[in-house]
């Protein structure tokens, strides 16, 4: 069989690479060890021959196989920061994504984190694969932090803890577990909730429905609606609860209300599914912010808890969190853990070490742990101060009788302003204040210096736009 020179259509210089190879004799086509006759057999089912004089070739098809792929819309939350970056106005304010900023509106790396990283560098630990379930030292301290070291669920080894990719990744592991082992079971999510919750359950193919939560009339909790909707759901549903500092509203149930929520969940044999992204960051106290989770655990209820260290340790980009599943026995916990591993393996094999080591070092060392608590109190304190200043500025400006005190009652990084989409758009278009369309502002991105300006923007949007 004769060997034929091939050439590609000269649409681009990509042809030259192949020609170069061919000229160097590196690629001989139609070589003798192949029983497949490529070039000379025009009837071969394997070839589409195009002739250019005496030169034949096989070409890649000219139309993209992905031509039908449409442009997806930008992420409603993360897309806000991108829009903010593009804005050149000097008064622009980014109150979109929930990332803590200092009074100077700079990102903040906690001092304990820097100390931990320096320690890690000095030790020169290796970068071997973690086990699928993650760093053992991290898994231990994270469960203890959440439930309390002396908690019976920990003492009795009833908690299956698996390191996950921050809150999102941990939620996704649990969602996949629900899909596999609780087919047909629904997850009840609050209305509203963090925008990505729905995406996570949709992609995991877990059906969901909403329970009433936010009452626009009071800019507070629609407690009766919440209880009624949880009660009405099919027995054995998963109920997604924000452990503290509800995102996006900042409205949390009171301790008394939590007890009633636990009552109705037990009554219906529902499974509580906590999302704890702000432990320590909401009130400034790690224990206080874990009270809701501990209340449920104390009742002997089996439950799921996703944790994130993005905000409370400022480890946003290191993607460190955990999925904890409290089971009725150590044996069940072991089995559940093994299945979580089975879900993680084809997703990412094993989780990243860096963030896990930082957490393990900080929480595991009494000195660093104390320092961390102090820094956390500082961050939570700054947000409380900013709430106060914003409230004071708005109250001073607004003599209409509108009650802005919800700003003080809400807790955590976010405030649900009650502004609608048109009003939120006005905030951005006229005032260059970037926020999400649901009226949520991130107080972590607000400085005392800018409270006055923000108050002007909110006042204008609320009263002059409908």
């Amino acid at each position, binding site marked *: 069989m004769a060997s034929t020179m091939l050439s*590609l259509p000269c649409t681009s210089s*990509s042809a030259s*690479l*192949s020609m170069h190879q061919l000229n160097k004799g590196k*690629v001989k*086509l139609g*070589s003798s060890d*192949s029983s497949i006759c*490529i070039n000379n057999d025009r009837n071969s089912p*394997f*070839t*589409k021959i195009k002739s250019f004089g005496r030169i034949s070739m*096989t070409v*890649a*098809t000219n*139309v*993209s*196989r*992905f*031509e*039908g792929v449409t442009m*997806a819309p*930008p992420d409603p939350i*993360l897309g806000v920061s*991108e829009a903010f970056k593009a804005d050149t106005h000097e008064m622009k304010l980014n109150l979109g994504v929930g*990332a803590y900023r200092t009074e100077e509106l700079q990102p903040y*790396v906690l001092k304990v984190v820097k100390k931990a990283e320096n320690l890690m*560098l000095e030790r*020169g630990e290796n*970068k*071997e*694969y973690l086990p699928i379930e993650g760093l053992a030292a991290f898994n231990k301290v994270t469960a203890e932090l959440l439930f309390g070291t002396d908690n019976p669920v920990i003492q009795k080894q009833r908690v299956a803890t698996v390191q996950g990719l*921050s809150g*999102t*990744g941990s939620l*996704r592991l649990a969602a996949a577990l629900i899909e596999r*082992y609780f087919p047909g079971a629904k997850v009840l999510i609050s209305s509203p909730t963090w925008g*990505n919750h729905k*995406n996570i359950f949709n992609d995991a193919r877990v059906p969901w429905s909403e329970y009433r939560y936010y009452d626009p009339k009071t800019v507070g909790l629609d407690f009766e609606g919440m209880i009624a909707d949880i009660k009405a759901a099919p027995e*054995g549903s998963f109920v997604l609860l924000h452990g503290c500092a509800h995102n996006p509203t900042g409205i949390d149930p009171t301790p008394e209300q939590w007890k009633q929520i636990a009552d109705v969940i037990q009554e219906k*044999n529902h499974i509580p599914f906590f999302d704890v992204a702000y432990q320590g960051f909401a009130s400034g106290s790690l224990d206080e912010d874990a009270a809701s989770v501990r209340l449920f655990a104390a009742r002997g209820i*089996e439950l799921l808890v996703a944790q994130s260290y993005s905000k409370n340790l400022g480890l946003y*980009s*290191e*993607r460190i969190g955990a999925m904890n599943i409290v*089971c*009725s*026995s150590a044996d069940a916990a072991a*089995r559940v853990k*093994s299945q979580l591993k*089975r879900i993680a*393996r*084809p*997703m*990412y*094999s094993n*989780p*990243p070490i*860096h*963030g896990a080591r930082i957490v393990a070092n900080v929480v595991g060392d009494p000195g660093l742990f104390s320092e961390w608590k102090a820094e956390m109190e500082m961050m939570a304190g700054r947000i409380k101060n900013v709430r106060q200043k914003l409230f004071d500025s708005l109250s001073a400006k607004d003599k209409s009788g509108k009650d802005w005190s919800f700003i003080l009652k809400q807790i955590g990084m976010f405030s649900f302003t009650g502004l609608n989409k048109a009003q939120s758009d006005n905030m951005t278009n006229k005032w260059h204040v970037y926020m999400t369309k649901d009226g949520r502002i991130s107080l972590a991105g607000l400085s005392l210096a800018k409270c006055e300006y923000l108050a002007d923007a909110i006042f204008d949007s609320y009263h002059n736009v409908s």
Partner: protein
Amino acid sequence: MADSVFATIVRAPEDPILGVTVAYNKDPSPNKLNLGVGAYRTEEGKPLILNVVRRAEQLLVNDQSRVKEYLPIVGLADFNKESAKLIFGADSPAIQENRVTTVQGLSGTGSLRVGAEFLARHYHQHTIYIPQPTWGNHPKIFTVAGLSVKTYRYYDPATLGLDIQGFLEDLGDAPSGAIVLLHACAHNPTGVDPTLEQWEQIRQLMRSKALLPFFDSAYQGFASGSLDADAQSVRMFVADGGECLAAQSYAKNMGLYGERVGALSIVCKTADVASRVESQLKLVIRPMYSNPPLHGASIVATILKDRDMFNEWTLELKAMADRIISMRQQLFDALCARGTPGDWSHIIKQIGMFTFTGLNREQVTFMTEEYHIYMTSDGRISMAGLSSRTVPQLADAIHAAVTRVG
């Protein structure tokens, strides 16, 4: 207390590959040898942090201006740019024409998974062909993403080499447009790679049937010691102007295993398509983990962007590849010296971290029980886990297994 809601959940078996290390750790024998998971070990049997990685990390940790803000969903921009250049070549027309979208992924696994999810949602063909055998995690990744998995012949047990005939026949029988997983170099678990000539045959066949190539590149630079040589297969497909996917991992070639650093690139026909594809990749990533981890990607970007560090890296990479090649030679020589029955030349013909010994399940079990040698039951050994000191022990074990066990 009510019955557990988890009562019906059974205990999953240990992962077959990662489970080998679990078993190894439990073994109290002082002579145990872990040839299971593919993690590089020095001559002293220790894990290795590359000097250049240490340097990069030092720079990063000491840089007071660095922050830990969320990365974009697609990851660190510099990292993505440099990764594409690394695999496709800095002068690749596909890159220059903006036809490549690259997203940071969670090492190889995560990059494969994101690519598979994307294809399951947006590509008209949902069958993926994987080589027989392949890395144990491949079928799981593709199946859970919603693709249907078929195999193509790859390894020929008779020759302990490539079954190119079977390879081409099976792809020839595949429906037009089907996805085909290709190991860019250093096939895992066999270590058997097509020659460049064979790659050209594969390329022509695939293009003639519009089969979509999905490369898994986990050993670039690690296989032959040359980054460019190990990327030839991929570049060949990009050079013909066609589309393909490529998953990259920096676990082995930069020793960043636990940092989970990798990338998924999709080479498209036009820049417009690439941009739309990227927007859809973001929709896959956001509900999975929102955005990727910063640390490992920063290390890689730091090294790839700096001329000196890049060169230093290539030297350290070559040293690792050379050590493995020397282990292959030593093991081969040791088996010949013992007169172990069989032709062991495949040990030096195969390339990369792994050797497909040709030992069967019973022989493997025997080697674990009698000689405390840990390896996967398919007869795959990680050459990276061997040293001059332990080669004789392994040779003895293989010799015993071959002569005493069926």
